[in-house]
């Protein structure tokens, strides 16, 4: 007997769906400096304008992967229960447990303090694979980041692995 697919018509309908978020304000130097401090990266390019001016960048830029964390700044309500965003990508039961599988980053231009970011998030693929402990559903989300001039800054392709189980 063939096993039922975990990819229901409801899940299938999510493929190709897009969402756009636009930031209300500039990224700002503080966001960049705090990110660098949190990572523990001492490079003055991320906080010292005098130093940064003398480099080929001509001014402060953000650490390369920071752009891929800027969607949170644009997010909507934060749930008191789990601290997560109401807008996160979820699959219907039984696919209530998920883990991050991987990230693929493409860097086009560095983020600068005066950039206002627009994020476009697209669910590009959903497919099923048999894992060691049972069926897994892979969701590939492609998130692109542009500035106020419409310049593409980066693309992040994230893989999430959903499985039946306890909510995470």
């Amino acid at each position: 007997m063939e096993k039922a697919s975990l990819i229901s018509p409801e899940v299938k309908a999510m493929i190709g769906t897009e969402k756009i978020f636009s930031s209300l304000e500039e990224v700002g130097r503080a966001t960049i400096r705090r990110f660098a401090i949190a990572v523990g990266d001492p490079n003055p390019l991320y906080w010292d304008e005098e130093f940064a001016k003398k480099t080929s960048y001509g001014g402060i830029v953000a650490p390369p992967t920071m752009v891929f964390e800027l969607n949170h700044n644009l997010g909507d309500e934060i749930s008191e229960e789990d601290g997560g965003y109401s807008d996160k990508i979820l699959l219907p039961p039984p696919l209530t447990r998920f883990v991050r599988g991987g990230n693929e980053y493409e860097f086009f231009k560095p983020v600068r303090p005066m950039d206002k970011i627009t994020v476009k998030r697209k669910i590009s693929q959903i497919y099923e694979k048999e894992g060691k402990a049972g069926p897994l559903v892979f969701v590939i989300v492609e998130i692109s980041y542009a500035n106020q001039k419409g310049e593409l800054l980066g693309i992040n392709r994230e893989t999430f692995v959903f499985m039946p189980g306890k909510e995470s």
Partner: protein
Amino acid sequence: MESKDLFYEDVKVGDTIPPLVKKITLVQNVMYSAATWDFHRHHYDREFIQSKGFPGPFVDGQMFGAFLTQMVTQWIGPKGVLKKMGLNYRVMAFPGDTVTCQGKVTEKYKKDGEQLVKCDLWIENQKGEKAIAPAYVLFTLLSKEIQGGKV
């Protein structure tokens, strides 16, 4: 911090990247959450996360992308430009873990007027387990011949 620029001619396939060691603390985990405006209880609330079956608060996977980036940019200097990076998550990381970022040059080639270098990357925890693998980075370097040229 002084970083010296690495030139395309300086790099050979098989060269290793100076490793970067990070001891991740709960405070750092919270700083990263705050800096990225990510307030999920995953990252700081022990009781909450244990009720979901995890041993304790865990590290945001994308912090590893930032660590690998730091290792690579410290090595190549400000004139090297990152093009792509990919990473796969193996075992979860928790505050208290000490992780070592490592890498090795796998390819160098010229294309469309650019000097490209590709490296395998990985991150090991204190138990010798691969937390991140496989991973890679692709970046451009200036050539000594065009030193001082436009980046």
